[in-house]
């Protein structure tokens, strides 16, 4: 079931939704981009439809809502440890002191990304209390994708069609805006603002310009293959690719003392990146993966192989943001294809011996 809305209708709808929910959506920040004359599209809370950026891919994903850049875990005093409230705590899901549930507007790839975040935070080991608290208060609105954006490869990753966890969808149409409504309880609201009702199937991408071939298996030998060498000098280890990625979840603990003697303070977790120095440093300063090519291998294999070995599907959802953001114009997609070529070559060379082993 779906509805058609004009600009005024959408305004009213969003304004009314924003009374009951916090609405988290892509917004355009003028001149905030990498170069001063370039805008940046990031996620923020909105209370007006005019603030929502419907037509381009966001530079950063929604993930800060579920996994904040920095999150307080507990406060400590001389003789006490107290679980942190505030953002993420019961009653305060997303914005300080605001107990409302959150509606997040996102595209199909990002909705698939949520499944990956859930896998790590809810199912890999014990449930993460902080993530759970926010997650339970988040509901999704699907932004339809009438066509692909630059660098996207969602079709090849199988994440072009959204999973079924959205309340309603939103996209531009000839009549203004079209919405498919999956949550029946929202229908009276739409009845009030719609100009007409008709069947709406959310648009999804069927063709990307970029194609990616993920490897079925990666022999251990290829983990030290020359495929990775070019990134030793090309990649500068800035970590932007992981920061923008909707499926990267790593964090590091950080203690912050409020007082000189350190007896009062808090422990936080802050987002971390396997591409940045220090990620694997252990006592005495020793570290694994000093070379940037090794870090590229660690990241890329996780995205298109290791995660699948553990959870049964690939981690990467093909949003292409890593390729949008890399200051060195490194293409993740091209890297995956080079890896697959190397795997094919290896397979061809070892066909005989594999057959013998079997």
């Amino acid at each position, binding site marked *: 079931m779906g509805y058609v809305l004009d600009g005024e209708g959408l305004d009213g709808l969003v304004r009314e939704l924003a009374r009951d929910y916090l609405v988290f959506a892509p917004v355009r920040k003028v001149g905030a981009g990498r170069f001063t004359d370039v805008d940046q599209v990031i996620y923020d809370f909105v209370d007006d439809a005019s603030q929502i950026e419907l037509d381009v891919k966001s530079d950063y994903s929604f993930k800060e809502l579920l996994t904040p850049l920095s999150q307080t875990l507990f406060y400590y005093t001389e003789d006490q440890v107290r679980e942190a409230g505030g953002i993420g705590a019961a009653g305060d899901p997303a914005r300080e002191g605001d107990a409302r549930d959150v509606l997040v507007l996102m595209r199909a790839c990002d909705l698939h990304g949520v499944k990956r975040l859930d896998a790590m935070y809810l199912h*890999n080991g014990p449930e993460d*209390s902080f993530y759970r608290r926010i997650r339970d208060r988040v509901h999704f609105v699907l932004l339809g994708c009438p066509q692909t954006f630059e660098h996207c490869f969602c079709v090849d990753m199988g994440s072009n069609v959204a999973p079924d966890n959205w309340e309603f969808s939103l996209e531009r149409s000839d009549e203004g805006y079209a919405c498919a409504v999956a949550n029946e309880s929202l229908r009276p609201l739409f009845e009030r603002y719609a100009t007409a009702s008709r069947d709406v199937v959310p648009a999804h991408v069927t063709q990307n310009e970029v194609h990616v071939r993920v490897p079925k298996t990666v022999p251990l030998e290829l983990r030290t293959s020359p495929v990775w060498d070019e990134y030793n000098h090309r990649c500068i280890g800035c970590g932007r690719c992981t920061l923008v990625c909707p499926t990267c979840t790593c964090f590091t*603990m950080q203690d912050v003392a409020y007082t000189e003697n350190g007896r009062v303070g808090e*422990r936080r977790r802050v987002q971390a990146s*396997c591409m940045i120095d220090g990620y694997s440093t252990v006592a005495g300063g020793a570290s694994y993966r000093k070379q940037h090519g090794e870090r590229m291998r660690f990241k890329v294999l996780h995205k298109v192989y290791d995660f699948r070995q*553990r959870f049964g599907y690939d981690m990467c959802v093909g949003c292409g943001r890593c390729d949008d953001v890399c200051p060195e114009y490194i293409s993740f997609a091209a890297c995956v294809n080079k890896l697959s070529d190397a795997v094919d070559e290896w397979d061809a060379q070892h066909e005989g011996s594999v057959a013998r082993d079997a």
Partner: protein
Amino acid sequence: MMPSNNPYIPFSSKVLEVIKHTEKEYTFRMAFEGEVRPGQFFEVSVPKYGEAPISVSGIVPGESVDLTIRRVGVVTNEVFEAYEGENLLLRGPYGNGFEVERYLDGECVVVAGGTGVSPVRGVVEALAASATPQDKHVIVGFRSPNDLLFRDDLARWENLVDLILTVDGAPEGYQGNVGLVTKYIPDLPLRDPSTAQAIVVGPPPMMRFSVKGLLELGLAEENIWVSQERKMCCGLGKCGHCRIGEKYVCLDGPVFNYTQSKQLLD
């Protein structure tokens, strides 16, 4: 302190005793009533300084766990400021630990170096108390005679299992064995190496060469078990730092069968 279901909130535990082995290595006997097995670890938490994963080196069920800590940096320095009767903050136990029963029946070899003795100490105790302690071969190595940990245990084990205690180097006139642990592997008096179990724990190069020696002796890969150490922040399978390939050392390890651990490339 309020108990919490939140896995990130540490609990307070009393330091029951501090045992000094060397200048830099102390054992902290901590009050702990829960279930725990050798090879598991705790996150020892010192607010302002951070957390450090530390293996369980001894267990008195329902009463205490021992944490044997080498003073190497920010957090461990701070832990060394704790005295008997004071409290430390802990989270855990984490990780899989050793399935002790696996090693009790037949022949078994344990090769441990330095602080690597901590995670296997409980296993060796069980081997010593097994029906066939003479079939249990324990090779323990330290850097020098001054670096010995668990001296009392070593003296006791000497009379129970086939113990080989060695040091990498020693001043002239030292009476004991001198040489790397790997030196003693080829001469192990195993009746049937193909069915013997083995545990190897220590610094990465020591583990690599010890496993090589055991394989050459005829042990099967699937009977060799190693314990891995990696950078860790959470111990809960969340922070990502300990991941190697598809494995999380904090959840799936730190104890791995060699058939798996040989597939792990950092």
